[in-house]
C-alpha cells in the first residue's frame, strides 16, 4: 500500500509524543514493574525458615539437650519459648507465638540407654499448611541423623539404613525466588502491557479524535501498527528493567541466552499489546477497558499460567483456558531459558502459540474496529 510507512510513522510519532508528555504512563510502564517485582518478590516466598518453636523438655538430660541442639542448629527453627508440660503448648499456637513444638518425654534418656526405641513428639500448627509440611520433612531428617549418632551399635547390628541422596537440578537450593521471579515477570508484563494499550483507542473514541482519523486515508491496520510500535519500545525497556532487577535483587540464575529471553519476551509483549488494543476497540470506553484489561490479564496470569498452580493438576476446562492464553506459554518458555538454559528448539512450541494468539487478535481487532465507531 502506498504511503503505508508514512502513515504508520505519523501515528507512531504522535503516540510517542502522548507517552512522553504523560508522566503517568512512564511511571506505569517503567517504575511500577520494578516496584511490583520487589514487592511481590520479597512478599511471595515459598521458602520456610525461622519457624517459631516451643520446647517442652521433660527429660532435662544431656541427651535431650543435644536433641534440641540438633533441631535448632539450622535456620529452620527458632526457639521462642520453653514450657514444662504439653498442655501449655496449645495456647501458644493459638496466640501465634509458636508454630511448632518439640516434646521430649521424661523417659527419653532411659529408653535410649535401654536400647528401646526412644520417641519424641513434634506438634505442628496445621493452619499454615506449607510451613507444617516443610517442618515435618525437616524433623524426619533430624530424627534420623540423631538416632544414627546416638545408637551406632544398634544400627550397625542391623546394617546401615539406606540413605537417599537427593540432588535437585537447575535450582539446587530449591530457592523459590528462582522459581517466582520468572513467573512474576510474566504477570507484571501481562498487566502493564494490556493496561497501556487498553486505554489508547478507547480514549480516542471518547474524545472524538478517532472519527477525525477515519476521515483521513489512514487504514485500521495502520492505526493498530502505529499505536503498538511506541508501546512496544517502552515495553522492551520494561522487560530489560524487570529482568535486571530480578537477577540483581534475587540472584536468579541466568542459564540460557539473554537474547533468546529478550526475544521471547518481545513476542509476548506484542501479544499482550494486541489483547489490550482489542479490549479497547471492543469496549470503546476507558473506564470499562481498564477494568476489563485488569480482569482478563491479572487473573489468568496469576492463576492460570502455571505460575503458582501447575496446569496439569487443573480440571480440564481450566486447563483448556490456561492453554488458550499466552501467559502459560511465556512462563514455560522463560523458565526454560532462564533456569534450564534451553535453546530455541525447546521454546519453539511456546513461541508459535504466542504468535498464533497475536495473529488471531490482530485480525479480530482490525475487523472489530469499523463497528467501534457507529
Amino acid at each position, binding site marked *: 500500500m502506498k504511503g503505508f510507512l508514512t502513515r504508520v*510513522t505519523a501515528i507512531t*510519532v*504522535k503516540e510517542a509524543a502522548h507517552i512522553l508528555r504523560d508522566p503517568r504512563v512512564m511511571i506505569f510502564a517503567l517504575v511500577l514493574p520494578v516496584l511490583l517485582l520487589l514487592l511481590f518478590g520479597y512478599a511471595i516466598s515459598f521458602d520456610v525458615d525461622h519457624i517459631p518453636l516451643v520446647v517442652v523438655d521433660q527429660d532435662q538430660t544431656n541427651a535431650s539437650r543435644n536433641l534440641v541442639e540438633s533441631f535448632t542448629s539450622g535456620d529452620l527453627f527458632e526457639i521462642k519459648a520453653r514450657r514444662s508440660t504439653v498442655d501449655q503448648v496449645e495456647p501458644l499456637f493459638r496466640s501465634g507465638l509458636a508454630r511448632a513444638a518439640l516434646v521430649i518425654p521424661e523417659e527419653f534418656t532411659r529408653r535410649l540407654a535401654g536400647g528401646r526405641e526412644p520417641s519424641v513428639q513434634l506438634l505442628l500448627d496445621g493452619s499454615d499448611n506449607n510451613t507444617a509440611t516443610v517442618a515435618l520433612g525437616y524433623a524426619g531428617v533430624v530424627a534420623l541423623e540423631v538416632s544414627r549418632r546416638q545408637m551406632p551399635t544398634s544400627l550397625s547390628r542391623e546394617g546401615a539404613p539406606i540413605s537417599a541422596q537427593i540432588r535437585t537440578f537447575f535450582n539446587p537450593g530449591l530457592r523459590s525466588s528462582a522459581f517466582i521471579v520468572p513467573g512474576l515477570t510474566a504477570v507484571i508484563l501481562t498487566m502493564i502491557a494490556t493496561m497501556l494499550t487498553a486505554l489508547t483507542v478507547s480514549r480516542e473514541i471518547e474524545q*472524538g479524535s478517532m*472519527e*477525525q482519523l477515519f*476521515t483521513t486515508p*489512514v487504514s485500521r491496520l495502520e492505526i493498530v501498527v502505529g499505536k503498538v510500535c511506541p508501546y512496544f519500545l517502552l515495553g522492551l525497556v520494561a522487560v530489560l528493567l524487570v529482568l535486571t532487577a530480578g537477577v540483581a535483587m534475587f540472584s536468579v540464575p541466568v542459564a540460557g541466552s539473554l537474547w533468546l529471553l529478550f526475544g521471547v519476551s518481545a513476542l509476548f509483549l506484542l501479544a499482550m499489546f494486541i489483547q489490550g488494543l482489542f479490549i479497547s476497540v471492543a469496549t470503546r470506553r476507558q473506564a470499562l477497558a481498564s477494568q476489563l484489561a485488569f480482569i482478563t490479564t491479572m487473573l489468568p496470569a496469576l492463576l492460570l499460567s502455571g505460575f503458582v498452580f501447575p496446569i496439569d493438576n487443573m480440571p480440564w476446562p481450566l486447563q483448556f483456558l490456561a492453554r488458550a492464553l499466552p501467559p502459560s506459554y511465556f512462563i514455560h518458555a522463560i523458565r526454560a531459558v532462564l533456569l534450564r538454559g534451553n535453546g530455541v528448539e525447546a521454546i519453539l512450541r511456546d513461541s508459535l502459540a504466542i504468535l498464533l494468539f497475536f495473529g488471531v487478535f490482530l485480525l479480530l481487532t482490525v475487523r472489530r474496529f469499523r463497528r467501534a465507531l*457507529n
Partner: protein
Amino acid sequence: MNRPAISVDGLTRRFGRFVAVDGVSFEVSKGEIFGYLGANGAGKSTTIRMLCGLLRPSAGRAVVNGHDVVKHTWEVKRSIGYMSQKFSLYLDLTVQENLQFFAGAYGLRGQLLSQRLEHALELALLTDRRNVLTGALPGGIRQRLALASALLHQPPIVFLDEPTAGVSPDARRAFWRTIRQLAHEGTTLFVTTHTLDEAEHCHRVGLMAEGRLVALDTPAELKRRHVPGALFTLHPAGGRSKELLAKLRQLEGVLEAQPFGHRLHLRIAAERDEAWLASLLEQVGFGEVGFDRTEPTLEDVFLQVAKEGAAATEGR
C-alpha cells in the same frame, strides 16, 4: 468538467426505527459554500458523516468528488478535509506536532510536507507559536489551527461540522473570511451550523427539519419566497403592546404580526409602504408608536418554514 462536487440522491439513514436522514437529495457545485442548517438532531451531522465515509447510508446514493461514498470510500477520504466541533486537535501535542501528524496521516512527506506545514502555520497565524502546546491556545485560535490541518493536503472539498461553535464573534468573522477566500480559490465548502446569521455567508442554504431537507436556495431567494412583503419593527409604549397586536392582526394588508420582546414584528404586503403603515397606526389609535423598516433574516425564514411544515403535517 462540470460535474457537481457533491451529489446526493435519496440519501437515507436509519438507526433502528428512528430515521435520522430521510430521502435527502441535493447537489453542491465546485467552489460553492453550501450551508446546512437545522436544529440539533435534525440530521445535519448524520448527513456529513455519510458524506465523509464514516457512516454507511441505509438507502440512497452519495457521490463526493466523483466517487461513490460506499464503493470508493478511500478515494473520497483522499479528496476531503473534515473538521468537527467535537474534536479538532490533540491538546497535549504542540501546534507543529498536530500539523505534522495530520500531514503524515494524509500521506504527505519530505519537502512537500514541510512546505505545506509552513503554509498551514501561516494560515493559522501561528508561525511564531509552533512549539506551544495546543491545549494552551484559546478556542478561536484552535479552530483556526484545526481548519489549517484539515486543509494540509489541499482537498477539493472541505466539510465543516459546526466549525464556529463556542468561538468569539471576532474569531468567527475572521474564520468566515478564510472560508470565503477558500471558496474563491475553488474549494467547495459544506458547512453545518445552527446559527442563522452564519448561514447568511453561504451561497446556498439547505434547511433540515426532522431528517428532511425542507428548503434549499440562496439566502435572498429563501427570504423572498418564504417571507414575502415588507418587514417592520414597532416600538409600542409599555403595557399596550398586547392591545396593538390584537388590533393589527385583524387588519387587511397585514400578513403577520408577532411579539418580539417589548417590540412587535410586523409583515405587510410588499406593495404597501411606510406612509400606509403610519396611517394604519393612526387609524387604530396608536399614532404615537414609532417603527423601523427591517430586512428579513434567515431566522424569519426558518420560523416560517417550520410553521408551513407543521401545517402540512396537520393537513395530512
